[in-house]
């Protein structure tokens, strides 16, 4: 195995250990090291070179960015979320044919939809929605965000507020709280 890949994999294991301990400062620290190391792989986007280890490198990098996205939710940093998500997205779209699907894909896409909703970026919300297949729309994580948007547009705010109890994934709570705040601000503005 390529020594560089082994090194990154080991570092990532330490990152995950810190992640489980909820030691987020250490996590962020490891993450920036990991990101620097990832730039050395030529098989990753945007180059997508077909190296012998390409599949393994792509899978590892995808895993790292998925953790980065979840980490950004936990430390409640929306800008970091956006950055990490866009880096991750090209693994979901451009490398789709080459990698086995990730179990985290739909929860993360749903999170992103929720973020766009919280930030009131409805146009982008719908642009993202267009990219999803009809099977993806049936996924509970995605469906949750889509239904929220509908209630939001119709003005059925009571449904938005009560949706917090039915979140499909624990990471969603942060954005749901923000959304509740957004709703309250809108209502008080009437």
């Amino acid at each position, binding site marked *: 195995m390529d020594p560089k890949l082994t090194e990154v994999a080991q570092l990532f294991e330490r990152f995950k250990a810190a992640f489980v301990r909820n030691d987020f400062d250490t996590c962020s620290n490891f993450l920036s090291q990991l990101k620097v190391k990832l730039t050395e792989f030529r098989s990753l986007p945007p180059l997508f070179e077909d190296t012998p280890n390409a599949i393994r490198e792509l899978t590892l990098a995808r895993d790292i960015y998925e953790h980065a996205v979840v980490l950004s939710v936990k430390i409640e940093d929306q800008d970091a979320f956006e950055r990490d998500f866009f880096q991750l997205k090209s693994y979901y779209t451009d490398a789709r044919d080459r990698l086995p699907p990730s179990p985290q894909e739909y929860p993360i896409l749903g999170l992103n939809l929720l973020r766009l909703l919280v930030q009131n970026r*409805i*146009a*982008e919300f*719908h*642009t*993202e929605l*267009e*990219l999803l297949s009809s099977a993806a729309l049936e996924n509970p994580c995605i469906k949750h965000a889509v239904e929220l948007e*509908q209630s939001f547009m*119709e*003005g*059925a*705010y*009571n*449904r938005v507020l009560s949706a917090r109890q039915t979140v499909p994934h624990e990471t969603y709570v942060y954005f749901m709280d923000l959304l509740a705040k957004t709703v309250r601000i809108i209502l008080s503005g*009437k």
Partner: protein
Amino acid sequence: MTQDVEMKDEEALPQAPLPSDSASILQHLKEGASFIEAASYTKEVRRIARAVRLTIQLRRKLTAPLLSAFLDYALLPGSEAHARLSAYLPKVTIGMAWKLIMMMPTSAVQAPAKHILPELEIYCYLLVILFLIDQKRYDEAKACSSASIARLKNFNRRTVDVLASRLYFYYSYSYELTGNLAEIRGNLLALHRIATLRHDELGQETLLNLLLRNYLHYNLYDQAEKLRSKAPRFEAHSNQQFCRYLFYLGKIRTIQLEYTDAKESLLQAARKAPFAAQGFRIQCNKWAVLVRLLLGEIPERIIFMQRGMEKALRPYFELTNAVRIGDLALFRNVAEKTGLRNISISYSRISLADVAEKLRLISTNPIADAESIVAKAIRDGAIEASLDHANGWMVSKETGDIYSTNEPQAAFNSRIAFCLNMHNEAVRALRFPPNPHKEKESAERRERQQQEQELANHITEDDDDDF
């Protein structure tokens, strides 16, 4: 949206008597070639455009022997380009003798050019690609168009631009037909960059549209919008390309929920499209109908009755009808506001329970839902009403005399603006041939000025004499 919306770039030309037999088609092709030769020497781009239009008319009548005869005529037999292009044509064995007969009169009339003009070579590529696409030999069309694009990169001549833009189109089209548009995206971007560097505006226009089409084919609205907003824009050179651009813009705007802009683009695209581009106009109308429904408008019946479109627009007509009658079960998420507006017009006071029933809200607490929906509609200005929470009523405000408001003024203004805009565009679209009288006029003026000058000199001389 995978349907074929290829818009034929046929302008409504006064139809020349169409050639009936092969000999006259060949004659026409040669005429086209001579246009191109002349254009190449005089640097007149318009003549090439004319040759392209002529070709499109002949398109359905192209046959393999005919093409190979033309290749022999236009390209030096035995030259590299000739060999490459002939490889795409099926071998003609019986046709050989016939071809010889075809060649007889031509060699007497005109000797083929000694060296091959780049324009002519590209023109031959275009003919072969057209032929291959019409014969449904898409893989060969793909190979041929890729070869032509590689060849095009070597020429930097403004007279090639018109032909090049047609080639770009068929290049993308052949890849679309085989379903691998994504492959050529990088190449199209590179071509767009080259066209920008060479100030080839027609090429930029065409390539921008092809790229937008490429992105939208895969629902990549985000990328499409980013490219569109960053790409340089200038006055449209080709009406067809402009129509396509408007259509793609309308689609992007629809997804972004900017329905007012979307409607404007789509309607303009439908109006500007040439009459022959039926498929394209149907697509524009479909999208326009949806967007107008989402805006809460009811499209006029006449839209659905346009000639040749009745069948395609039938489902859209039924949808519109459902919205008009207010059958909310059919289109629940589409136009709740329209439904609410109808209710508020019909009733001066109505209980929220009834509103919930009329809007067919299905949930555990329909009254609370109805209340918040009404509240939102009031805030958005969709209806003029107020809520009575204690009694659970929605009370509609009396609609006053509309002529006492600014409403008629605004409507009038928007119509005038529309007409003025149309007029300005019509004026801008006028084209004049380079004026041959201009030179004569200025020569005359110069002469006159000279005479006046002489006269003035005479007078001063006379004055001098007086002293």
